């Protein structure tokens, strides 16, 4: 049956690896089903599209009960890096691409990638700090206007 969802619009506001992948997998999954998709990167989500930072995203080991390690341990030096390394290894086994390659795949698949103007200004970022695949820098109002047809869904991550 045809899906009633025609366009998925994601707002990524966090830079932990699990949140970035959640947005990417859902945005890519939409394109694979013939559904339009776009991602708006705001606040810490901007780390995922900064050339210098995107390959260094971490999984959160503090304040994340699903890690099943005591919060005190999660805060020790190196624990976050180790947990991230382990998670990346598992992802590679499932053929999940690293962040940079995933962004290329999304862009080639026709998923639109946008930076949030307010957050870009706040972090004093320049266009050249951000990935070349970026389609532009928008205000939130501009982004809402992308929901221009029946069957649009906006998801905040």
């Amino acid at each position, binding site marked *: 049956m045809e899906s009633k969802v025609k366009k998925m619009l994601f707002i990524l506001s966090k830079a932990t690896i699990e949140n970035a992948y959640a947005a990417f997998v859902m945005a890519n999954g939409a394109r694979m*089903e013939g559904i339009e998709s776009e991602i708006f990167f705001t606040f810490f989500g901007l780390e995922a599209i900064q050339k210098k930072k995107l390959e260094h995203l971490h999984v959160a080991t503090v304040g994340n009960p699903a890690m099943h390690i005591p919060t005190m341990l999660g805060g020790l030096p190196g624990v976050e890096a180790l947990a991230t390394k382990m998670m990346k290894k598992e992802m590679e086994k499932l053929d999940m691409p690293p962040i940079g390659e995933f962004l290329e795949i999304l862009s080639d698949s026709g998923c639109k990638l946008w930076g949030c103007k307010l957050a870009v200004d706040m972090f004093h970022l320049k266009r050249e700090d951000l990935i070349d695949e970026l389609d532009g820098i928008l205000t939130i109002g501009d982004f809402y206007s992308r929901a221009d047809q029946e069957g649009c869904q906006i998801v905040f991550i």
Partner: protein
Amino acid sequence: MKKIIANKEIDVNEEGYLVDFSQWDKEVSECIAGECNIVMTDKHWEVIEYLQDKHHKEEALSIRGIKKSGVINIKEFYNLFPGGPLKKSTLIAGIPKPKSCI
């Protein structure tokens, strides 16, 4: 269930995917492609052959695999099979729909 494709009785599942690859031939492919409003070109066939080869080697299909395939890039892939490229291309290739989320 059975479906008449290119004047042949073909076994398909509820989504229209062939369940027995031995019933596949180019005419069947062209007929299914027609239902998807796709006119097959040499490039389409090249991709279909690549997908069938992967399937027969029991290697999982993914969009990342397409990127690395050397046969086609992702942009072209979306252009050749609009509206869900892996879904459409595997349907035409007579192989099962990939189960992967990526």
